[in-house]
């Protein structure tokens, strides 16, 4: 409870940039008119950076992304309070396709590539909202440069390996030329080696293309390595935020999400069976 009580972790004040690309202000999300999932969540994403959103299962991370991208509406969810500002404009009332046109693209959890289409067709679909058709071919080449192995795969996308599907999902997002990519668990189901590879590419994308990424991850260690700033959610609220380096050093974060931490008595596997979560934020 000590951390939640600290007023120092108010996101709006703590965000490093004065004009964030994305600002989520105190939103409340309700599913099916009854289930309250987000209870006054706020966060800010400055341009050109990776911001990580961490939290346990069911904390509301994916819901947060869907609230931003507008996909919430197709799951019978609604933002009942607060606002989502992108580039200073409120976008919470827009249809999902309008939000994509503004430059916010969500890479959904579980990759969700279209398995009965080829790689190339998936990539072309990513460019659906683009007006500059002539540039699309050049951008497909660019995606192939980031993910060379996609070029060799000419069959249906459903037959790609999990890692390749994730690369295709990210490549498809790039085709839309978004300003902000909402990335939901890119490491899901991938081997540690592939996780490294995917995150290296994600880092390069930010450096070379100038995209901004809001990253939701279970793999907190990896996420805090690539991100510059992080938010930690629990039960529909942000309970802690700070620079990625500060979060990685935080004892509570270490214990809850990174493993280890929490004092001397848990350093040994001998005591593992007595491990139980010491405390919660909320």
């Amino acid at each position, binding site marked *: 409870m000590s951390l939640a009580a600290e007023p120092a972790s108010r996101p709006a004040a703590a965000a490093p940039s004065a004009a964030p690309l994305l600002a989520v202000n105190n939103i409340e999300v309700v599913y099916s008119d009854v289930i309250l999932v987000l209870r006054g969540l706020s966060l800010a994403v400055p341009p050109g950076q990776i911001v990580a959103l961490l939290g346990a299962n069911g904390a509301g991370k994916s819901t947060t992304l869907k609230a931003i*991208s*507008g*996909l919430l509406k*197709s*799951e019978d969810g609604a933002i009942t309070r607060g606002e989502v500002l992108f580039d200073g404009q409120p976008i919470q009332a827009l*249809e*999902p*396709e309008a939000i*994509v*046109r503004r430059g916010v*693209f*969500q890479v*959904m959890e579980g990759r*969700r590539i*279209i*398995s*009965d*289409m080829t790689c190339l*067709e998936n990539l*072309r*679909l*990513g460019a*659906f*909202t683009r007006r500059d058709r002539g540039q699309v071919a050049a951008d497909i080449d660019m995606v192939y440069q980031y993910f060379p192995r996609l070029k060799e795969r000419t069959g249906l996308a459903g037959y790609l390996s999990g890692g390749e599907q994730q690369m295709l999902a990210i490549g*498809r997002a790039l085709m*839309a030329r978004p300003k902000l990519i909402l990335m939901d668990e890119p490491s899901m189901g991938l081997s540690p080696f592939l996780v490294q590879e995917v995150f290296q590419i994600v880092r390069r994308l930010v450096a070379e293309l100038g995209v901004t990424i809001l990253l939701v991850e279970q793999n907190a260690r990896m996420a805090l390595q690539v991100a510059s700033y992080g938010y930690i959610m629990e039960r529909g609220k942000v309970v802690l935020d700070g620079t990625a380096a500060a979060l990685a050093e935080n004892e509570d974060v270490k214990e809850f999400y990174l493993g280890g931490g929490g004092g001397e008595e848990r350093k040994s596997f001998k005591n593992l069976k007595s491990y139980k979560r010491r405390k919660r934020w909320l």
Partner: protein
Amino acid sequence: MDWGLFVQLMINGLIVGALYGVVAMCFVLIYKASQVVNFAQGEFVLIGAWVCWFFLTKYQVPFFVGFLMTLAFMVAFGILIQVVVLRPMIGEPVISVIMVTIGLSIIFQALMKWAFGVFAQPFPPIFARESVAILGLEVRTVYLVSLVASLGIMGGFAYFFKATRMGLAMRATAFDQQVAQSLGISIRSVFAMAWAISAAVSAVAGVVVGVVNGVSSALSFIGIKVFPAVILGGLDSIVGGVLGGIIIGLLENLAHFVDSQWLHWGNLIEVVPFWVLIVILMIKPYGLFGTRDIERV
């Protein structure tokens, strides 16, 4: 055995089957894109034929102009039906949507009888020559045009879904609506477009049959014959719809041949497709190309 009759009937089956295939494609298109089982598909065929007939006989426009006007009308009509009737039904139970399309079918059937009468009306002659000779065979021009039109439509569909931006968007929507939305595709406009294309292409089939046999309410029989075709091909496969249509067309003419040569029961041509339908549902309920997890209706 009368081989001349056999060949004649098989060609007939191919031509009629191709038309079934075209209408079956339209049916599958609506089902895939918007998950609506459209029992009013046959009425789309009928309306298309009547509207074209109306333009040609009432306003005496040349066939080509009247045909284009019909297509334009049907596009508007398809969008109107989708937006006004089906859009509010999104998210309602499957059975309610089916009742709505059955209701539409009854309304249109009655409306067409009220507006144009119950008697068959012939189209004005369209082609300068009644028949052309191909490889020594005298083929009626309308049949030839019908086959070419069917193949053209099928080729057009293949190109549309493979190569165009909207075609890909439509496939994406059929695959997963949420994914489609996340890519910036407006699923509402995809739904409207599916209905527009389906109505317009069904009208082409209607006009072709109308030119051959004249227009009457009986024309919506195509809508009924299309069910065995679609079920045979698999409810969600466009290729399956085409093949199913051709197979049903050939089968019913084969049945007609057997009937006329040996059995002499009469009217076997009308019932055989439905026997086939029952047999398929028993041994291969997902059809030739259908996917397994389709909700059966």
